[in-house]
């Protein structure tokens, strides 16, 4: 599914960001990725959607191996994943439905299929009534739901979420998180980086903790030595 094998990442100017990271995410799993700021969470996620590549070691996303992958094959990998961010990354000059449709157009979906697919996705995230609104007319929680709808256009096997609730208040956080749980319940794996320890504590999902580029805790794998975090 997703497998990291002794992955190291060295950035040109900041040095070692990941130090010998190995883990496995199974089909349909929900995984929290935690750790202090600068620990390497985003770096791990970027490697999964092939925005960054390991300096040493290797990782597999489905059957695709990084860093051996050809540049031209990356789009195909990304079509099997969905990615959402803290800052939503919506296009401000397009309506909600246009934002979602955009992701479908980009992968050459036949235009007669786009309409129904968009409305189905917007219904799924509970925003059918705001289809023709612009992002600035929506609350943060609603905007994140649009981003999630967009991430789901290709029926991904895994949803990558980098602090999806980082910009949201408690109520919106609960709502977005419930949506992620629902998506996971329907069979999509979710890998979510978060600082929200309460969310982590209150849910019985697997936790991967990174600190200074090392995997220091994996609740789903007894072989990883648990170390005290400072």
């Amino acid at each position: 599914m997703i497998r990291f094998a002794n992955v190291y990442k060295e950035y040109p100017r900041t040095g070692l960001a990941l130090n010998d990271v190995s883990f496995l995410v199974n089909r349909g799993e929900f995984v929290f990725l935690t750790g202090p700021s600068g620990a390497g969470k985003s770096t791990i996620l970027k490697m999964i959607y092939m925005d960054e590549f390991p300096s040493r070691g290797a990782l597999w996303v489905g059957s695709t191996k990084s860093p051996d992958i050809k540049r031209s094959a990356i789009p195909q990998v990304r079509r099997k994943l969905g990615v959402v961010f803290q800052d939503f990354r919506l296009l401000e000059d397009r309506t909600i439905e246009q934002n979602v449709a955009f992701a479908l157009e980009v992968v050459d979906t036949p235009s007669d299929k786009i309409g129904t697919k968009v409305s189905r996705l917007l219904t799924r995230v509970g925003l059918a009534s705001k289809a023709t609104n612009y992002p600035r007319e929506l609350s943060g929680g609603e905007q994140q739901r649009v981003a999630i709808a967009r991430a789901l256009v290709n029926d991904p096997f895994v949803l990558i979420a980098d602090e999806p609730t980082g910009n949201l208040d408690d109520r919106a956080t609960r709502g977005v998180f419930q949506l992620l749980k629902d998506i996971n319940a329907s069979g999509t794996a979710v890998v979510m980086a978060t600082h929200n320890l309460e969310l982590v504590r209150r849910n019985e999902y697997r936790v991967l903790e990174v600190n200074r580029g090392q995997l220091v805790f994996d609740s789903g794998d007894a072989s990883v030595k648990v170390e005290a975090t400072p």
Partner: protein
Amino acid sequence: MRLAVREAMLAFRRSPLLSALSVTTIAFSLLAFGLFSLVALNIRSALRSVEERVEVRAFLVDNTPVDSIAGLMEELSKRPEVQRVEYIDAEQALVRARAELGEFKDVFEAGFLPASLDIRMREGFRDPAAVQQVVEQVRLLPFVEEVRYGADWIEKLHRIRNIATATGVVLGIAFAAVAIIIISASIRMTVLARAREISIMRLVGATDAFVRRPFLVDGFVKGVLGGLLALLLTWLARTVVSKSFLEVDFFPPSIAMLGVAAGALLGTMVSSVSVRRHLSRLK
């Protein structure tokens, strides 16, 4: 594809000034090529009609033995650049001179004009260099008194044609360079303005080809518009010259189409190269 066309239209609306400038510089580049190749084209057709009459005439010393003449004729006929060699004796020369000069025919007396060999050049060898070679062979023979040929102005026409061609090429390339700079700048602006959009496209799995496509369509459209504009301007220039100075030929339709195609090619290629460069800098 529809998306690409839409995006390309958007590019025109987003930066109309830069777009217009791109089209204009492409047009100027092609216009330079067009105008000067039009000059070259017309000189060429003028040359062809002149060259058709290119003859080298070698006047012979009186009482040259027939053997020598026959020998020379045979030798000349063997040259690849010679089409025909004709012996004109004094009698014929007189007849011809009278025919050509009409009312002055009485001033010529028999025997006044020398006999000559008229050498006609084969097509494709009617340029100054080939003519010069034949002239050299004949000139130094003891029984050849003088050689005459229309070298001067043929050479002049050739030179004008070459200058026109060179000027067109140089100016065309200069404007093409300006077009390249401007198109590249406008693509850079568009890429930066759309950086966010492009990064989202990539994130949801757009191929590089897909991201580039609107830019290529945009370049193609600008190229075609530039080509058409150049064609229009060239045609206008020709019309003005035809009306006020002398009748000039225009390009045949196939060449005109080729000009527009060249514009399309220029626009598309420059866009392709420059969008590749600017996209790789993004990220």
